């Protein structure tokens, strides 16, 4: 007779077979059998968070910085509802998460039992798929299928809801190797004809541009290498979405910076004027396209994406290539080389005019700001942070708001998986727990959460988690005492009626840091900034860095609402210059 295992044991056997090393969670009544089993599995380390949302974001940070799925363990009822924000966040940003939730015993489901909620019902719209395990004999299959669904195709979160009686029930376990391999639908649906067509378009183009997104990062580090080769081979300019930053070196000359609402002048104008737009792993988000009717009106559009439903959803494209970015780029470069089309040389003349135009836009230096020697400008703070950390392999997470955009604009990334930010859902409070997950996955590396004082207070409790596990994350708060992005919109569009956007009754962040048992550092003027940042980097403990910045600073450049890419609003410096010369008023 084969050995029988409890549901709780099977959960861990599956996690071990899936090579899981870390789970982020919080115990409770309905998951106690699983927590009881934890001690018998030393290869799996549990990170105890302070709130289930934190577990979800930490698992996201873990997944995005390591390329492995993040695993979350929560109890029924409030445990499950608390993790919903993180699941939705992961769904929007295509992050592979496997969430295991406890549920009340099967016979109590539907009776409004203590800590019961319809977990699979609540999480249905924010997961790729979810399962309620009603039979112990289904548990093993479902667990492995959960990992399969989370990590294949366009990645995303899944949830497995396990009633308490199922965690106690016993059955036999068959090792995954013996199990029949779960059939994976082939994700690549393109053929050589599509690639040939792409190359023909590239060959004909005189104003081409690559527009790359998070899909390149999700496709794995190989995709970034291949992308660099392709960009070098073609000589085309490249711009990236918020989520794609790092897949192409931020300081490279062919890189035009981020595009979209707070993207650079050159990237957005190039998107508007190009005659060939090659979208690699991005999804034409509304923060990217601006006004749809006037989005890149003169271009042929190519869309490379693993998710067929992303294609033609927002923008109608001329050529759709459904497949994994790595495979598509590989085929493209291979064909380019085989046809011996050295586009960089043969196209040089054709594209050189395009590059001249781009240089003109570039000379606007749209990320410039008026610096001060009295008060710390937030952009300056990010620039200094970059200069002082670029010599090491640094991981950056952010919260959501102005600081997030300044980090995206002024911190330059050279490698994928180094930049973790909540782009789709825009979850304030994402950065601190995400930094914890990043640090768990990358123990020796420098991890900085560029934060705002309003966002950080949403998940502040997780600093305890960082202390407990000696995770020396750095919380770099650009403290302007406002919900800055809200204030900016109120200033520009609501006649400076700063309704409820002032951060009243803020804590003393230095004392708060000390209360938690970590290090608090405050910087109040530009002279001391570098020294304090170095101090922060050199402390081998979690740090809360309270950087007092200009309260009135706005994030520029920006595309005002309802406007196309070529009508950007530039910063105050440029606005002033324009007033003097009287030129380019249309830009404002």
């Amino acid at each position, binding site marked *: 007779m084969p050995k029988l295992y409890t549901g709780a044991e099977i959960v861990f056997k599956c996690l071990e077979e899936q090579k899981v090393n870390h789970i982020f969670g919080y115990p409770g009544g309905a998951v106690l059998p699983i927590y009881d089993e934890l001690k018998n599995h030393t290869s799996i380390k549990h990170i105890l968070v302070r709130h289930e949302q934190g577990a979800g974001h930490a698992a996201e940070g873990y997944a995005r910085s390591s390329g492995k799925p993040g695993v979350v363990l929560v109890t029924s009822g409030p445990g499950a509802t608390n993790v919903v924000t993180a699941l939705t966040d992961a769904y929007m940003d295509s992050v592979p998460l496997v969430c295991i939730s406890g549920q009340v015993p099967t016979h109590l489901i539907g009776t409004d039992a203590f800590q019961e909620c319809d977990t699979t019902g609540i999480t*249905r*719209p924010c997961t790729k*798929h979810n399962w*309620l395990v009603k039979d112990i004999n289904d548990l093993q299959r479902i667990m492995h299928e959960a990992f399969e*669904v989370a990590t294949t195709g366009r990645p995303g979160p899944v949830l497995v809801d396990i009633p308490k009686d199922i965690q106690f029930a016993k059955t036999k376990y068959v090792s995954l190797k013996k199990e029949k391999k779960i059939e994976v639908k082939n994700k690549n649906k393109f053929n050589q004809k599509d690639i040939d067509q792409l190359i023909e378009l590239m060959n004909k183009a005189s104003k081409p541009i690559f527009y790359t997104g998070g899909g390149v990062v999700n496709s794995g580090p190989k995709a970034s290498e291949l992308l660099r080769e392709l960009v070098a081979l073609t000589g085309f300019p490249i711009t990236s979405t918020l989520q794609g930053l790092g897949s192409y070196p931020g300081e490279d000359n062919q890189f035009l910076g981020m595009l979209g609402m707070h993207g650079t002048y050159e990237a957005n104008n190039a998107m508007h004027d190009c005659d060939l737009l090659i979208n690699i792993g991005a999804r034409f988000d509304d923060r990217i396209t601006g006004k749809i009717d006037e989005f890149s009106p003169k271009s042929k559009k190519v869309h490379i994406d693993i998710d067929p*439903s992303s*294609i033609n959803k927002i923008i109608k494209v001329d050529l759709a290539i459904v497949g994994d970015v790595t495979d598509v780029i590989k085929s493209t470069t291979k064909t380019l080389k085989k046809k011996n089309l050295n586009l960089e040389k043969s196209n040089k003349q054709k594209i050189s005019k395009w590059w001249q135009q781009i240089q003109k836009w570039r000379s606007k230096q749209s990320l410039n700001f008026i610096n001060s020697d009295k008060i710390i400008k937030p952009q300056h703070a990010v620039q200094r942070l970059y200069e002082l950390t670029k010599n090491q392999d640094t991981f950056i997470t952010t919260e959501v708001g102005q600081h997030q955009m300044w980090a995206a604009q002024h911190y330059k990334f050279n490698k994928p998986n180094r930049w973790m930010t909540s782009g789709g859902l825009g979850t304030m409070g994402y950065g601190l727990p995400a930094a914890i997950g990043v640090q768990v996955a990358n123990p020796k590396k420098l991890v900085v959460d560029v934060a705002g004082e309003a966002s950080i207070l949403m998940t502040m409790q997780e600093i305890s988690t960082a202390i407990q596990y000696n995770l020396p994350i750095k919380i770099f708060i650009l403290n302007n005492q406002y919900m800055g992005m809200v204030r900016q*919109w109120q200033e520009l569009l609501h006649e400076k009626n700063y309704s409820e956007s002032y951060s009243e009754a803020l804590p003393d962040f230095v004392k708060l840091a000390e209360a938690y048992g970590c290090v608090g550092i405050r910087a109040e003027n530009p002279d001391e900034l570098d020294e304090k940042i170095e101090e922060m980097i050199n402390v081998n403990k979690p740090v809360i860095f309270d950087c007092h910045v200009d309260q009135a600073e706005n994030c520029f450049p920006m595309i005002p609402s309802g406007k196309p890419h070529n009508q950007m609003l530039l910063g105050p410096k440029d606005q002033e210059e324009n007033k003097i010369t009287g030129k380019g008023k249309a830009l404002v």
Partner: protein
Amino acid sequence: MPKSKSAYSTPTKVSKLETHIIVVWVDNEASVLSRVVGLFSGRGYNIESLAVAEVDQKNNLSRITIVTTGTPEVIEQIVLQLKKLVPVHKVGNFKREDKNVIFKEMALLKLIGNSAKIKKALNACKKFNPVILDQTNKSAVIQITALRREIDKMVKNLKSHGLISVSRTGAVAMTRGAEIFN
């Protein structure tokens, strides 16, 4: 144009609405219908009618037929989004005007009246395969199968013939000829 105060773009021109019949083959498992219906409500798609039942007991497959209206872009999205659901096997998409597809709905009609009156009513729905399922000396239950608009019309006409209760199904669809949909 007044200055927009929204961080979101304003809606742009919308193309013409079309009515489509979407046929979805799914695993007959718990909550599969709510996954399909939830996709429609969550993304703001429209359901005009819905019919669902198991069609293959051995393979545990159900067939869901949904009548929906939307722009061609929306219809394309519906099909692609449905295909992403884990329990969905395949998705068929037909225009309502498609001559190669048969659409039928069924209705049960309860009429009150003497046999002469009921005979008249029965005569009125002659074209729609009427079947008498129950008859007493002062009532009858008649089953008809027809297109939606035909049933609409019949219901209206039969009001004067003693119609007091109507029960209807959603549309089901089948392609004409020997081919099956793959």
